[in-house]
C-alpha cells in the first residue's frame, strides 16, 4: 500500500462540483450537507440491504430528489450487471437507503448485458453514460454491483478532479494496493468523461479496463483524487472470482493507440429494451 493524495473530511464540501440537471426548482431552500461531514458516521448495517425504507419517495426509474429542499448536486449512477439478481436486490435496497440520506438528486441506471458473450464492463459503462448524458446529468458515478459504501460522508457527487471512490476496500484490508487503481467505484464529471472518450470498448472478461481509463485520464492531463481513507470505506459482497482475460495486458499496453478512436465515439451495440423499473432504469443491451 502506498500513500495517496486525498481530501480530508473537512475539505470535502469545498471540493465538490455544484451542478444540477436544469429542471430542479429554485423556490426551496438549498439542502444542507455539512452535517454529513461533521458526523462522518457509519451507515452500514445489515437490515439496510434487506428492506427499503419509504419506497414511495423514489420515483419510477430509480430517481430521487429531496422534497423539502433543493439539491445542489445531480448524479447518474451507472451499474453494469448480468445475472446476479440477489446482489442487485441488496445493492438497490442499500443504495436507495444510503443515497437518500445524502440529500442529492440521483438516478440509478442498471446496464444489463443480455447476450452470452464475455462480460464487457467497460462497454456497459459507456452505454450507461450515453443515456445519462442524454438526460443532461453533469456527473457520472460508475460502480460495481457488489460494492457498498460504509460512511455517509462518502458523498456520491463529483469532485473537480476524477475521483477514485473505493480506495479503502475491506477485501484489500482497507489499503490501496497500487496508485493507479481506478476501478470499483469512480466519479467523473460528464465533461471529463467525454473529453477522454470514455472507456475502451475492447476489454472483454475481467480486468484491465479500469487501468486503461486511468491511462486515458493521465494522457489528457487529469490527475485523480481520493477521499480520506476514513471516509472512502467500502465493503465488497462475496462472490466467485471471475477468470481474468489473458489478453488484457496486451490491450492495456497498446491502449494509448486507441485513446481517440475507441471509446464513446465508437460505440456499437443493439438496444434490447429501456424500462423504467420501480427502483432503477433498466437498459438491456446486446454488445
Amino acid at each position, binding site marked *: *500500500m502506498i500513500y495517496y493524495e486525498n481530501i480530508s473530511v473537512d475539505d470535502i464540501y469545498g471540493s465538490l462540483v455544484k451542478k444540477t440537471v436544469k429542471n430542479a426548482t429554485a423556490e426551496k431552500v438549498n439542502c444542507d450537507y455539512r452535517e454529513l461531514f461533521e458526523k462522518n458516521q457509519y451507515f452500514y448495517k445489515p437490515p439496510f440491504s434487506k428492506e427499503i425504507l419509504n419506497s414511495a419517495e423514489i420515483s419510477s426509474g430509480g430517481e430521487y430528489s429531496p422534497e423539502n429542499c433543493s439539491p445542489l448536486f445531480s448524479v447518474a449512477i451507472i451499474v453494469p450487471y448480468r445475472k446476479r439478481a440477489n446482489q442487485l436486490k441488496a445493492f438497490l435496497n442499500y443504495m436507495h437507503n444510503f443515497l437518500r440520506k445524502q440529500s442529492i438528486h440521483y438516478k440509478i441506471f442498471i446496464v444489463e448485458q443480455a447476450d452470452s458473450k464475455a462480460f464487457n464492463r467497460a462497454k456497459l459503462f459507456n452505454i450507461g453514460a450515453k443515456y445519462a448524458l442524454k438526460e443532461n446529468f453533469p456527473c457520472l458515478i460508475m460502480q460495481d454491483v457488489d460494492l457498498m459504501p460504509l460512511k455517509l460522508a462518502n458523498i456520491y457527487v463529483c469532485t473537480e478532479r476524477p475521483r477514485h471512490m473505493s480506495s479503502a476496500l*475491506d*477485501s*484489500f*484490508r*482497507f*489499503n490501496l*494496493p*497500487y496508485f493507479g487503481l481506478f476501478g470499483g467505484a469512480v466519479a467523473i464529471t460528464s465533461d471529463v468523461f467525454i473529453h477522454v472518450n470514455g472507456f475502451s470498448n475492447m476489454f472483454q472478461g475481467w480486468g484491465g479496463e479500469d487501468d486503461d481509463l486511468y491511462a486515458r485520464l493521465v494522457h489528457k492531463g487529469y490527475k485523480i483524487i481520493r477521499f480520506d481513507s476514513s471516509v472512502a470505506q467500502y465493503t*465488497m459482497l*462475496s462472490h*466467485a*472470482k471471475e477468470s481474468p482475460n489473458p489478453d488484457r495486458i496486451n490491450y492495456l499496453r497498446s491502449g494509448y493507440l486507441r485513446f481517440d478512436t475507441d471509446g464513446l465515439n465508437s460505440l456499437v451495440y443493439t438496444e434490447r429494451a429501456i424500462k423504467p423499473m420501480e427502483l432503477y432504469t433498466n437498459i438491456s443491451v446486446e454488445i
Partner: protein
Amino acid sequence: MKLLSESKIKKNKFDVLLPLIFILATNFIAIVSLEFCIMIFLVFPVAITSFYIYCAKKSSRTNVFFIFSLLSAIYFICLFEFFVPLLELLPQENFVFVSLITLTVIFFFKTYQHSSLNRLGASSSTTSESLKNNTNDSVSVSLIEAEEKQCDSDEDLDSEDKNSCSICRKFIPARTFHCNSCKSCIIGRDHHNYFLNCCIGRFNHKYFLFGCISSFSALLLFANLSLTSICHPFPVFKIFGVMFLLPDDCTDVFRETEIALCFVGAIYAIELAIALFIVIIHQFVLISKGMTSHEFWIHKERVNSRKYGIWRNWKNFCYI
C-alpha cells in the same frame, strides 16, 4: 573410524530431511481441501508431541526438533514475503513481522549461547565452547551458591544429603539437577529443550521466555495478516490509527494453490502459537511461584529453598 563418520553423515541427513519432509508434506497435503486441512492439523500436534516424549524418554541428543523449528521459521518468512498478497499490507506491518522474527532468533540464539553457563563444571571440561571466560563463569556459580546457602541456613536443611549428584558423583549447588541429554548437572534446571537443542536453566531462562513471547506474537501476527489479506476481513477496533481486522469469510481459499498455502500456513502458525501460549502461561505461573518446570514435574514443589512472594520471584528471575 570410517564407518563411524559415515553413520554420522547419514544421521545428519536424516535430521534435516525428516523435518523438511514433514513440514512440506503436511502443508502440501492440507491445501487439497478443508477436510484434509482439518485432518492434518488434528494429527500434527499428536505426532509432534508423541515423538517429543519418545525422544525425551530416551534422552537422545537429536537435532530433528531444532531443525524443525529453524525450518518452520524460514517457511513462515518465505510464505509471508512471496505468497501472502503483500500489496494489501502496509510496509509497517511487514517491518513489524520481520522485526519480531529477528527478535525471536536473537532471543533463542542467546538462550542457546548462554546454555553452556548452566552446566556445572562446564568451564573445566569444555573451555572452548563456553561463552565467557572461566572467572566469569565461576563467579556466577559462586554467587548462586552464596544465595542458596543463605536460604539453606535459613531453613536448616541437611545439605550434605540433598546437594550431591549420584551420576556425576560430586557436590552440587542447591536447585541443580542432572540432565541425561546434556550428560551434565544443570544449575536451576528448567527442562531440556529439544527445539533449541539445549538445556534451559538459570542463565538462559529469561531469554527462553522472551523468545517464546516474541515468537508467539510473530506467529499470531503472521496468522492475522495472512488471513485478513486472503479472506474477507472486518474492522474490530482502531488503535493509534491502525485498524485491527479479523477475517469473517474464508470461502474459496482452497481454489488457488498460493492462497491455500497462505491459509494452511496461517492455521499452522495458529497451532504453534497455541502450543507456545500454553508454555508461556505455564512458565508465568511457575516463575511467580519461584519454581522451575523440573521441580514442578519431579518434586511438585520448590526444592531446597525458602518460598518468596511473586514480586521477589520475578525479581530473582529477571536479575540473573
